[in-house]
């Protein structure tokens, strides 16, 4: 219906990939041997997807990925359930890597600087140029972000061949935790946390599902820990200690809003209370110096809250405390992380919920190393600077002097595949391949080896070359033979060299790794020491000093959407409502309502934020989840040269920060300065999707139930009674349909009228259950849905107008949130999708049957039949229908981003209504495969909608609710089950929610 993918192009691709399949037995052309996950390569059939397993290269967590390819194009990435780290989940950023693959701002080929402009050259020319410059200038410095172990080894060999140095640099890193672990236990590597095993989880400003070492795994752990109904599991409690609630913090059961920088004092005060006066060990003296009173004074919260927390930390064990993450890296961050490790130690958590060692072994990134490198560059000691996988010109504050120093380097080389601030300065750009086009490996944790394989031929618009191949070629030009012609051979050789006969034949292991995405080697995970050592570095555990004389402390945190800014050029990420603020596209300054009121600021007022290091103008967003003495800004905005979607959007929070390295870890300090906030007098509309400032107005939308009340729900419900409603029923008022607690036998509900096109039959009735006790609001499902269903992005102006196209809207309601004192926290997340009502208000009002009920209970939308009266959207009480106000799919999506489109889903055009379809294409695909291959009915659990597939928390279950043995039936038969607004307007939704469970009594009108 739209001309987004032109029919001719489609046929061309079809023909090429078909020919590829017959000639080479491989749909991906010149890449080597690809082993698809489900179907052998000879069986690539047009119209049938081929899946490959690989490793996500989006961040250092290295989650496992399945990639769905159609006719030689990657169209969707999903979590790999067999991967030991991510176990099937995938975050929003993981999905957005697909937009990096098809990013129209990628370089068309190697770029060579001529004067002020860049010209496209050939690879041979570029390689010879680099080799020549290395030969003449010498002094090579390689600045690299996270990369797989084999590529990292190759870089080292390359550098040793040319006599260069190497600097590891990532915009965000866990260096303080790593350093604290080294100081405390003598182990170089991050500890691993078993969040799922904890009963009481403390986060000292650690936003472990936003960012950090492994957001997906930690998210899964958190959901498991806090789930009330996991088998043989008691609901765990999560306490957040920090000045600002991230999306991680919003999931806490209690919030102790401690002053920024007081984590160490609080952790030590607690540890001291636990250890008592007879503390032993190398830190006994330190503990003597702290107590709960000093902690309370430092944190600005009541002493009692800290003392009782300390008591519970032992009594409610197994417990787990996590030290400050990137958003709380202040000048004493290592000390704070060490204090938290000590707290874990005195509570006996080490070896139980905390394992020392065994985390990712990627090289540690330190800002202090970068400072040294900047010094070397500025001093002219660097002849050739090579930057790979990182963007220091953006992610370092101007105060660091990187740009000026980098400019001094005679020959600057960038491996950026698309323009960024660093590449813009480079003399030679060697566009690297996307990880979905290239070979690699990863070691996400000790003993696990995952292979990253290309899933498709490199996107033909861009003449790119894998960094490994390039280094081999340049080495060869320089006369150093590194033992392989291609990086594929090098990689395979490296793995073969490590292979021991105990693991079986190498070929089998290799193929298994390709097929499943990851293999666990027999090598035992190095569970290092668990006994504390005496510190070998001088540390201060006090609240650090902050720069400037402003009255507000500035918190700069990695964005859950953009990370440190790497994902800013993805329109999916730009348009994904921030999980906390629900704002899209632009930057905002988070400010407590009391603070704003005192200054006469309203939401949307543009303020000038001034620190001693810089100033930015940014609109205010009023947020009750931040202390009154702090304001917060996310990273990732304010790009100056990073492609069409990132450039000019928002502000760069780093402009306000000093170029300070934390001692002794050398980490970049994000929590460093105070600021002054002054109104500019200008106001703007925020591009938010939140229409009620987080207030659900006491409506039965996202209710919760207290843990103590579970099991007594029946009586309570009877009490409530709907007296007035029942009175009205005698006069024809609505009769709420008894759904027997969601029992499958209750479906289809009486009174259901499906209209003339849905003849009743004995088939399935598709339904969904969403457990709000598990949902963390991370928004991975939103992006997964965009990718699966060809949902377009609309741009900032359209979002401001209220025209965002999300099929999944994660509603965030504050029920209880108090930034002034320690106490219960109650914030509800509700993923709102089409409810597929049995009694759908949208269906009778459509004049042309564009929306109607299928016999399977799905509320279908026939795009081609839609005239665009928008009556259905008006009459939808859930407001889940979105409209194509313009040709978004055509005008917003440049070539080759449209290659990502799912060929199984219609690309909608101007003037058409759309909404969640329960991933109808996946239902049909599963049904067809079941029928064709084995002539059977589809099995329970075989159909997995995109949102469910992606959900790290496993909060979503889909299936046939008419089958009493299906998982969805089992989940729905729960006293917590409710359907949004159903008792009020009798819509009989097919989406069943399970109430969030709180520890405290639920206040307000809703149970």
């Amino acid at each position, binding site marked *: 219906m739209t001309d987004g993918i032109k029919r001719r192009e489609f046929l061309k691709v079809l023909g090429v990939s078909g020919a590829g399949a017959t000639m080479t037995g491989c749909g991906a052309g010149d890449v080597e041997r690809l082993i698809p996950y489900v179907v052998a390569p000879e069986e690539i059939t047009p119209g049938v997807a081929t899946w490959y397993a690989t490793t996500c290269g989006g961040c250092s967590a290295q989650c496992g990925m399945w990639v769905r390819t159609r006719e030689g194009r990657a169209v969707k990435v999903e979590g790999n359930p067999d991967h030991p780290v991510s176990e099937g989940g995938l975050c929003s950023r993981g999905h957005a890597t697909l937009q990096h693959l098809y990013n129209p701002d990628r370089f068309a080929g190697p770029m060579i600087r001529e004067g002020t402009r860049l010209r496209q050259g050939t690879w041979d020319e570029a390689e010879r140029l680099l080799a020549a410059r290395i030969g003449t200038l010498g002094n090579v410095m390689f600045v690299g972000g996270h990369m797989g172990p084999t590529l990292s080894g190759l870089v080292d060999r390359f550098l040793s061949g040319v006599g260069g140095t190497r600097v590891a640099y990532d915009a965000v890193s866990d260096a303080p935790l790593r350093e604290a672990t080294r100081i405390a236990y003598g182990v170089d590597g991050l500890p691993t946390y078993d969040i799922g095993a904890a009963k009481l989880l403390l986060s000292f400003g650690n936003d472990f599902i936003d960012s950090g070492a492994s957001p997906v795994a930690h998210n899964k752990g958190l959901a498991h820990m806090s789930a009330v109904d996991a088998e043989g599991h008691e609901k765990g409690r999560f306490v957040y200690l920090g000045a600002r609630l991230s999306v991680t913090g919003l999931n806490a059961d209690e919030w102790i809003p401690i002053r920024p920088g007081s984590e160490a004092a609080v952790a030590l005060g607690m540890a001291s209370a636990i250890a008592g006066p007879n503390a032993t060990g190398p830190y006994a003296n330190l503990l003597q110096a702290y107590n709960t009173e000093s902690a309370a004074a430092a944190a600005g919260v009541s002493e009692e809250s800290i003392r009782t927390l300390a008591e519970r930390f032992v009594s409610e064990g197994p417990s787990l405390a996590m030290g400050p993450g990137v958003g709380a890296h202040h000048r004493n961050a290592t000390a704070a992380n060490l204090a938290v490790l000590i707290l874990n130690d005195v509570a006996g958590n080490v070896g139980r919920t905390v394992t020392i060692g065994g985390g990712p072994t990627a090289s540690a990134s330190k800002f202090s190393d970068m400072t040294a490198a900047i010094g070397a560059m500025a001093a002219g000691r660097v002849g050739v600077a090579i930057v790979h996988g990182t963007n220091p010109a953006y992610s370092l504050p101007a105060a660091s002097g990187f740009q000026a120093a980098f400019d001094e380097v005679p020959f600057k080389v960038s491996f950026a595949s698309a323009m960024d601030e660093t590449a813009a300065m480079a003399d030679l750009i060697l566009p690297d391949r996307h990880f979905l086009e290239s070979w690699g490996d990863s070691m996400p944790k000790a003993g696990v080896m995952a292979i990253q394989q290309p899933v498709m031929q490199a996107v033909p618009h861009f003449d790119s070359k894998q960094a490994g191949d390039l280094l081999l070629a340049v080495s060869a030009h320089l006369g150093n033979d590194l033992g392989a012609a291609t990086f594929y051979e090098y990689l395979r050789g490296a793995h073969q060299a490590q292979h021991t006969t105990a693991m079986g034949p190498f070929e089998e292991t290799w193929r298994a790794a390709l097929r499943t995405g990851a293999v666990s080697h027999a090598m035992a995970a190095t569970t290092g020491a668990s006994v504390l050592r005496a510190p070998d570095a001088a540390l201060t555990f006090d609240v650090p000093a902050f720069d400037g004389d402003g009255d507000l402390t500035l918190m700069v945190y990695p964005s859950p959407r953009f990370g440190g800014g790497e994902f800013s050029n993805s329109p999916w990420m730009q348009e994904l409502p921030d999980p906390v603020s629900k704002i899209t596209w632009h930057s905002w300054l988070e400010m407590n309502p009391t603070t704003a009121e005192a200054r006469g600021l309203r939401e949307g007022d543009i303020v000038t934020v001034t620190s001693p290091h810089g100033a930015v103008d940014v609109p205010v967003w009023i947020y009750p989840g931040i202390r009154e003495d702090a304001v917060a800004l996310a990273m990732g905005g304010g790009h100056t040269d990073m492609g069409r979607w990132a450039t000019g959007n928002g502000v760069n929070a780093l402009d306000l920060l000093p170029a300070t390295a934390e001692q002794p870890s050398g980490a970049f300090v994000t929590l460093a300065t105070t600021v002054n906030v002054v109104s500019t007098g200008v106001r703007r509309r925020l591009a938010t999707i939140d229409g009620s400032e987080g207030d659900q107005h006491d409506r039965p939308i996202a209710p919760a139930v207290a843990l103590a009340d579970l099991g007594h729900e029946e009586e309570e419900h009877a009490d409530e009674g709907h007296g007035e409603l029942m009175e009205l029923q005698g006069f024809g008022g609505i009769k709420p349909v008894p759904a027997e607690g969601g029992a499958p036998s209750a479906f289809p509900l009486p009174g259901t009228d499906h209209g003339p096109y849905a003849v009743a039959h004995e088939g399935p009735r598709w339904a969904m259950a969403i457990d709000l006790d598990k949902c963390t609001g991370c928004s991975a499902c939103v992006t997964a849905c965009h990718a699966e269903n060809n949902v377009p992005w609309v741009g900032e102006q359209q979002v401001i107008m209220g025209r965002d196209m999300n099929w999944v809207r994660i509603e965030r309601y504050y029920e209880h949130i108090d930034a002034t004192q320690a106490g219960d926290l109650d914030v509800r997340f509700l993923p709102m999708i089409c409810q597929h009502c049995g009694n759908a208000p949208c269906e009778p009002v459509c*004049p042309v049957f564009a929306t109607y009920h299928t016999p399977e209970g799905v509320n279908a939308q026939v795009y081609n039949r839609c005239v665009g009266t*928008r009556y259905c959207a008006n009459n939808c009480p859930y407001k889940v229908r979105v409209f194509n106000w313009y040709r978004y799919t055509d005008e917003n999506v440049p070539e080759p981003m449209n290659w990502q489109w799912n060929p199984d889903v219609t690309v909608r055009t*101007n003037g058409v209504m759309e909404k969640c379809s329960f991933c109808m294409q996946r239902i049909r695909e599963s049904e067809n495969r079941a029928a064709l291959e084995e002539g059977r009915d589809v099995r329970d659990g075989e159909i997995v909608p995109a949102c469910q597939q992606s959900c790290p928390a496993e909060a979503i279950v889909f299936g046939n609710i008419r089958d009493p043995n299906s998982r969805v039936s089992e989940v729905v038969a729960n006293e917590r089950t409710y359907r949004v607004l159903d008792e009020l307007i009798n819509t009989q939704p097919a989406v069943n929610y399970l109430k969030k469970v709180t520890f405290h009594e639920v206040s307000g009108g809703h149970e």
Partner: protein
Amino acid sequence: MAVGTQERGALTHPDVHRLDDVNRDVLKVLATPGKGWWMLFGLAVAGVGLFLTAWGWQIYKGIGVSGLMSPVGWGVYITTFVFWVGIAHSGTLISAILFLFRAPWRQSIYRAAEAMTVFAVMTAGLFPLIHVGRLWHAYWLIPYPNSRFLWPNFKSPLVWDVFAVTTYFTVSAVFFYLGTVPDVAAARDRAVGLRKKFYTVISLGWQGTDQQWHHFGKAYVFLAALATPLVLSVHSVVSWDFAMSIVPGWHATIFAPYFVAGAIFSGVAMVITLTVPLRKIFGLEAYLTTKHYDAMAKLCLFTSMIVFYAYLSEFFLAWYSGEEIERSAFWNRLFGTYWWATWIMLVCNGFVPIMLWFKRVRHSIPALFVISIFVNIGMWFERYVIVVTSLHHEYMPFAWGIYRPSVTEMSILLGSFCWFGFWFLLFTRLIPPIAIQELKEVLPPPMRKKAKAHDGGEAHA
């Protein structure tokens, strides 16, 4: 026709003594137009240009050039649609219902009112087309046989709308046309050239014979009887567009009578707004007297009270229902983002017409004109309040949003008045705007002693 109206309807016009005075005064309107007419007509044509340009732009770019958004999927377009359908009501009311009830004061105004009806429906009918996302598929709402056996959804109030509006247009157009035939014949007898040819065709060979008058009278009564239920049904159906939904603020049983009363209210006000300048410009003071305006003002006052009662009962029932979401919707209507629109509605439709209780006001043409403008504004805002304030503040607080009409929408709104004005101005030039033959019925019959009573061989009786 209209037997027996003479006693009750006999109006004394100081300047009109003879039947051919009527011909003279009314038909002179059709003579060469003055500067004023040309200026107004020029404005109207320019406005139609604006209307078509804005609409064309919207078709080219997409409905996104409007300010519509989620959750407010209907806005100025539907507001204006309902407004024009409402305007269309009083025409049929005045000509059909008042005819059947033998209300004598209708004779001077019904022609203009009927013309207004037809043109208002022509304007209203465009708005559903303007508002749909895919205009080129809008014909799918019409039931027509097709190879795929696809029919419209007869459960949908929008399909009822299609029937209601097209039926109303057909009947009111026929009724209007039929009533003009004897007058057009009178104009034909005086016209020359192209105009004569035009009138000859559309007067259907009217000669004014007894038999013709007999048939005309019968047909007129039948059509009046046919049109009468439509006055009530069309706006009831339009109101069901809202009442059949589950949107708080729309879902109310009171909607049909409430909308019908509102339609008559706005329609009568529009008749006043249109005839006051008409009377002035064409010197028809003798035919449109304070007696007529007094009667229309009373009708306005009466319907205003019904409408205001409906407002109050809506607010009362929202409170009395105890239903929080309903209460919230009406609280928001009064004090929420769009409070100003609600208060414009209440003041213009509820409070300003209170002045009509005073005879002095009812007999002051300028005062009536001003009040009628207030009512027109108030009735537009009534529909805006119903459409927009209900939608923007529905069940899901997280999805609440604020709608701001765009320049394109306001251009089309303005353009629709020009489109209407374009036809109305043409009407005043082409069709006698006051019913000659009915007016004559209320004049004293010609006396034989005046020798020239039957002079000129003119076709009128």
